[in-house]
């Protein structure tokens, strides 16, 4: 299996295992040479499954935030957190699954469109509050944002029209601050 496939195993999990859960792990990492490679390489070397991985700058220009959605039973997730914490360039690791958090994902979908199907696609876009960002005689490109479930749902709705290309960002997430207990 090529490493990229081992790392980003997006296949649906095999036989349902109740112990295996999806965890959203937020990582703050110093912007150092090879730091992302270190993290991605650790997942590959230890054989952990990643559903999605996104990375981008933060308010601190020396630090990036990586959001990883990983699957595993409690022991594997505990090991993932520990192994991440062992990496020197990592500033902080938070398993958001144990917290209340907001998460979003963005998707761009280029879908096949004819004069007949275009209105229907646009209707779906409206329901999901997606935007049309590009149009051609044969295609429509939509931009949708939301939780992973919402993104999954719009993709499911668009599938019958034939999706030509698609790009998902993977989940980004932040811990909720105000939780109403004050």
């Amino acid at each position, binding site marked *: 299996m090529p490493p990229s496939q081992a790392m980003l195993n997006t296949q649906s999990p095999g036989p349902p295992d109740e112990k295996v859960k999806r965890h959203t792990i937020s990582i703050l990492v*110093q912007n150092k*040479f*090879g730091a992302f*490679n*270190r993290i991605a*390489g*650790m997942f590959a*070397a230890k054989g952990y499954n990643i559903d999605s991985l996104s990375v981008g700058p933060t308010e601190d220009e020396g630090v990036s935030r990586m959001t990883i959605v990983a699957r595993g039973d409690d*022991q594997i997730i*505990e*090991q993932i957190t*520990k*192994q991440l*914490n*062992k990496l*020197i*360039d*990592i*500033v*902080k690791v938070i398993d958001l699954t144990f917290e209340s958090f907001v998460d979003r994902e963005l998707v761009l979908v280029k879908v096949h469109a004819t004069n007949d199907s275009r209105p229907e696609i646009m209707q779906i876009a409206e329901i999901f509050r997606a935007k049309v960002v590009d149009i051609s005689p044969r295609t429509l490109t939509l931009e949708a944002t939301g939780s992973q479930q919402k993104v999954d749902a719009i993709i499911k709705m668009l599938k019958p029209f034939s999706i030509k290309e698609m790009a998902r960002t993977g989940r980004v997430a932040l811990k909720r601050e105000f939780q109403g207990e004050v």
Partner: protein
Amino acid sequence: MTRQAHEGESPASSGGRLMTGAEIFVRSLIAENVEVLFGYPGGATIGVYDALHDISDIKHVLTRHEQGATHAAEGYAKATGKPGVVLVTSGPGATNTVTGIADAMMDSIPLVVFTGQVPLRLIGNDAFQEADIVGITRPITKHNYLVRDVRELAQTIKEAFYIATSGRPGPVLVDLPKDVMAQKTHFEYPGSVTLQNYNPILEGNVRQIKKAADMINAASRPVLYVGGGTILSNAAAELTALARKLGCPVTTTLHGLGSFPENDPLAMGMLGMHGTWYSNMAVHFCDVLIAVGARFDDRVTGNVDAFAAEAKKIHIDIDPSAISKNVKVDVPIVGDVKSVLTALLELVNPLETKDWLKTIEAWKDEHPLRYRNGEEIRAQYVIQKLGEITEGNAIVVTDVGQHQMWAAQFFNFSHPRTHITSGGLGTMGFSLPAAMGAVFGRRDLPVISISGDGGFQMNSQEMATIVQHRLPIKIFVINNGFLGMVRQWQELFWRRRYSHVELANPDFVRLAEAYGCTAYRATRTEEVEVVLRKAMAHTDGPVFVEFVVAKEDNVYPMIPAGQTVNEMIDTPDPAPDGKQPAGDRIETVEKGKARKVSVHAPVPSNA
């Protein structure tokens, strides 16, 4: 330093003067008190080597292969507790260090490996002798760096030494582009270093320690399972005190050997695949297992689900990720072994373990370590004799395979840092260069390298380095003409189909002599003790001995991979195949008991 001091200069600062990266490198190593550097020069490090030319504070050892340099640094680190330092050039120089680095990673050995690199502007160009060594070694180092600016150099070296030696030690690689080492800047060696997310926990959690103490105080069949972390933490004294206070039997892993004296009645020797029968039984039937600086390796546990299945488990380790990685434990304590054991010692009471020790004593009587002895030399006998002659006062550096297990079983290690071997990675060719490194750090004890005929030939080029420096190493090759451990597995589990395990060897004695080394050969049991004594008495440089041993012999006891004590195979009784030569007999050795010494070859008084 022989160089003239400049105004305002101090050992850790260049004052107002600008220094090249190469000079800064040398000055940083001096600031880190590096005594010895194992290396091999090349195009990318020629500037650094120029800066080393006039330096007398650091001894540079030119090995004959970069793998030899890395293992030498490991041997030095294991013998002294100080970090081993390596300097090699880019490309092949760097890639040749990979095996040693991986070995150090597996066995938690502090190494700092400096590799030359092509100039920054050529990186990624497939330049001559270019290799992405930072990329290559990322998964096998604790951390690694590419220095992109000379102003980062001193800080990077400081961090590298700090990371390599603190917490759970390990290898750190620093890649040094040629042009960076020629750039100039002010030199100021940092006094201390802080890293945002790297603060190894030393003190164990007080509540966890209390919980562990309560668990231990309620035990009736406790076992201490002691790993290499105890030696890394210099905690052999605390461990011994704890075992004796509790009256708790002790078994050690391969790397734990030496942390507890094996002539102590509580000693059970090594556990695991080739551990003693009684240590494996004791671990299987104990009610509280106290794992100290050990990591529940598969060679120790066999089938993890059945490993000490009934026991409550306490696990002391400095590495949080070692806890509950393979075996779920009841009371984890993250911390430095020495600090945790000191705290624990205060809280535990002497236990009533008389019955438990009696049970173990009975196992010792029924299933001692045994081997067949006769006219043909047995490796076990060589090692047992060596242990007796040196009385354990020697640093024994083994290679990988059957002789390694026999050394672990029969030498009776009793002092920390006297047993050096490649455990985790199992690197053949480790012993000779590692022994060489050990002798650069330790002259208080004789250093003995033991290899098989296979492993010896994997790094035998270091004979040249050893002879060049007239290093007082005893180099023992146990020659059975086979890759013995693979042959043993083929015999036991692959229907005796000996596929590519027989070696056609050179004349080892003449080979050693060609290097300029005194060399002996023993071919019969009665010669063993004489030649051992001769070798141990040899003080003028290295001495080489080839022991031609029985071609086919197996390491027992053995728990086949992934299995349990139920499948443990003990040494077969005398001649089950009826092919035993007349005069052969079974020698027995027990841990923690006065040993039954065989006097097969009387020692001539003038030997």
